[in-house]
């Protein structure tokens, strides 16, 4: 199996059934995994921050850094390979926070909110999620089966 690593602020798509996409160390960042079982095309995004308005130049160079630029690019990249929105399975993981993180720099919370708004506006339904709390997560997506796995706080992969 060919393992393709998705870095921080990065996205990869594949239609090759020998591929497995993986992203490590999602803290407050969110991993978005999408898959169309009809054409066996999938993609994985690891975005870092909710909104690109803080640095529009950066967003142009690296759209995968932000929710509002990365999520549309993830879907469009999959459409280019023949995926269709109505068949796509969408799962998310990450968005963890520091403990007692009520009053400041709530990046995990803000990432989750930004993502939900974008999905709601575009009529995208989330088929599975493992978000919040305060541990790191690793996500992988097998292109052959569409299986999406998340490494939980006990360091064990479970299907999402």
């Amino acid at each position, binding site marked *: 199996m060919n393992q393709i690593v998705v870095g*921080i*602020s990065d996205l990869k798509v594949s239609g090759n059934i020998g591929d497995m996409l993986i992203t*490590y*160390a*999602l*803290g*407050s*960042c969110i991993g978005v995994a999408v898959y169309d079982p009809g054409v066996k095309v999938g993609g994985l995004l690891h975005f*870092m*921050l909710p909104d690109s308005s*803080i*640095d529009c130049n*950066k967003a142009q160079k690296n759209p995968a*850094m932000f929710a509002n630029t990365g999520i549309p690019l993830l879907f469009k990249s999959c459409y280019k390979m023949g995926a269709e929105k109505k068949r796509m399975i969408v799962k998310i993981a990450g968005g*963890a*926070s*520091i*403990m*007692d*993180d*009520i*009053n*400041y*720099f709530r*990046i*995990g919370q803000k990432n989750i909110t930004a993502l939900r708004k974008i999905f709601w506006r575009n009529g995208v339904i989330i088929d599975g999620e493992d978000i919040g709390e*305060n*541990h*790191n997560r690793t996500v992988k997506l097998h292109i052959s089966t569409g299986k999406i796995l998340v490494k939980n*706080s*006990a*360091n064990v992969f479970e299907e999402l």
Partner: protein
Amino acid sequence: MISDKILKSINNLPAFPATVHRVSEVISDPDFSVDDLVNTIKYDQSITANILRMCNSPYFGIRYKVSSLREAVVYLGRESILHVVYAAGTSRFYKKVKGYYWGAAKLWEHSVGVALMSQILAKKIYDREDSGLFTAGLLHDIGKVVLGEFVHESFQEIMDLVSNQGYSFLEAEKEVIGINHAELGGEIASLWNFPKEIRDAITYHHRPDLMEKGNDSIPWLIYLADQACMMMGIGGGADGLAYRGLKEVVNKFELRQRDFEKSIVLLLKDLDEAKELLALVDNE
């Protein structure tokens, strides 16, 4: 009270390279000579080799190809020499780390991340870089190198307190082992003759609110840089984000959410340009 076993472990650590402290002394003289500095460093081959590995990194912005120690010292400039020498001297302690899942290379990546972020924040807040802050960033989690073995032995017990009883990872370490990695790191820095401000920054990097008010900006900056790296998953481990958030930090630095997020964007760029620093520690 530190248990005898832990005390024995820290006493078994190799001494901190004397060269590094000597460089810091030489450089603290505003009129230091390049010859003095080169002569101080050149007998430590591992540090010299590490300096040469790092100084062509885009992070330091040298536009010439550096091939000798003398050139490195001349082109780097005062602050950057200290950064490079401390990174070169510190990395040797990150060889094997148990207990936090992800090993020495990840812990080193996290430490470099915190050091880089501390400079970004210092520039934003105080309009200057600070090599003491950089060193504190590199060493803030040094306690984990020793404590990891004990965390590994008691891992289930610690995780039970964190997952089910609302403990932070730091509190759980203290409850189960008797000392947390920050306090132990402070002990190690003391054994290595680091100045008080760096020892304090290590000891209080998760709880700067417990320090006496006054000269506490280094610990607060390390705290904030550490939180940013934990949120971004930079070299994160089993402890994840299970640490307390202190809202006082907002008033302390009058830092807006936007500025914090912009700093994170800069951090990612710096990390990308500082790959040679990360490469000082190999995967186990």
